[in-house]
Structure formats: C-alpha cells, structure tokens
C-alpha cells in the first residue's frame, strides 16, 4: 500500500534561517506531488506541484522553493525565513487523473 511521510512534525526557526522540509512517498511510482500551506486552520494554498523529477510548478511567488530530486521525494526550502512563512505545511500525492490526493501529517512551522 502507498504511504506518505512528512517531517518534521513541528519546527521552530528564527527569522533569516534556512528551511528544508522533506516529503517522501512509498508504494507508488511517478506520483504527482504537492506542497500546500494552511494558515490559521482554514483554507489550503497550493504552493508547488510536480508531475515528474525536476519538474516544478510554482503557484504563488514567495520566499520558498521546491525541488524533486527523486521520483518520490519532494523538498520545500527557503534560504531565509520570514515571519510570514509561519504556518502548517502539507505535502500530498496523487496518481492518475481523477484519483484523490493523499496527505502527509503536516509540519507546523513557527518562525520567531
């Protein structure tokens, strides 16, 4: 069966520090991968999605970047965090068109 792992679960980082959040999927190949941010426990904002290795689409210009170095690995990064980067970050994967997305457990990032 397929599983998605996202870590760490919580993270407190100072302003100006770098960020690296990792997401890996097991049990499937060539998944579509997504990074979302959720503010204040409400709506999801799509940050990045990827349909293949090295293929990244950015939905919102911001202080973050994403990379997909391997088929089932998706990394969210920042060189210098801002206070406004605080939030709940969710990684997700989906298969062929029409199938649902499956979410990781999320990372609560607090920038102080």
């Amino acid at each position, binding site marked *: 069966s397929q599983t998605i792992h*996202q870590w760490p679960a919580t993270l407190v980082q100072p302003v100006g520090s770098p960020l690296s959040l990792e997401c890996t999927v097991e049990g499937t190949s060539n998944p*579509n991968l*997504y990074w*979302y941010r959720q503010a204040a*426990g*409400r*709506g*999801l904002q*799509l940050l990045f*999605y990827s*349909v293949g290795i090295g293929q990244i689409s950015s*939905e919102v210009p911001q202080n973050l970047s994403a990379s997909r170095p391997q088929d089932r690995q998706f990394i969210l990064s920042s060189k210098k965090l801002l206070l406004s980067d605080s939030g*709940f970050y*969710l990684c*997700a994967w*989906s298969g062929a*068109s*029409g199938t*649902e*997305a*499956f*979410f*990781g*457990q*999320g990372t*609560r990032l607090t920038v102080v």
Partner: protein
Amino acid sequence: AQSVAQPEDQVNVAEGNPLTVKCTYSVSGNPYLFWYVQYPNRGLQFLLKYITGDNLVKGSYGFEAEFNKSQTSFHLKKPSALVSDSALYFCAVKDNYGQNFVFGPGTRLSVLP
C-alpha cells in the same frame, strides 16, 4: 478557472441529527469532486469522491455526498451525526484536464452532545 465555495463557515448539529455541509463548484470541464476531513494538527483525510456514475456516492465513516450537475453542487451528508464527527471539512475539485486540486475554504462542523 476552477473554484470551490463552501458557504458556511460553521455548522452546528445535535448528536443523532442529520448533517449537511454544503459545497458548490465551478470548472471548465467535467468535474472530479472530493471531500476531506481534518482533525486538529493533522493532515487531510480523504472521505469520498465523485468521478462519474451514480450521483450519490458513499464514503468513509457513514458519509455520503450527492452530485448535482444543474446546481453545480456536491453537498456532504450523514444521516446521524456523532460527536466524533466534529472537525474541519474541505470540498475540492479537479477538472479532467488539470493536475491540481482546488480546495474550498473549509467548514467547521460541531456536533453537540
């Protein structure tokens, strides 16, 4: 462009009563529709989906949803609510051309004992 509306910020129901969480959508092609539930500080859990076929789809934990093409709606329902159903519910849509999911703003469901 795709969009999803969940007109109610909050829905309160008494335990044992039926519940409905509303969702309307807009897509350019045929819609693929989804419902998710989120508990505090957790990821979203998939409940059910409509791709094609019967307009009434059944999902996890006794939830069901009805696809209504003319009203562009996909309301989530459950005949008898449980206190443990209290959570944040998201409707999502994807058209048959794209790869992305568009989520609604979420509806907080509170089931009162």
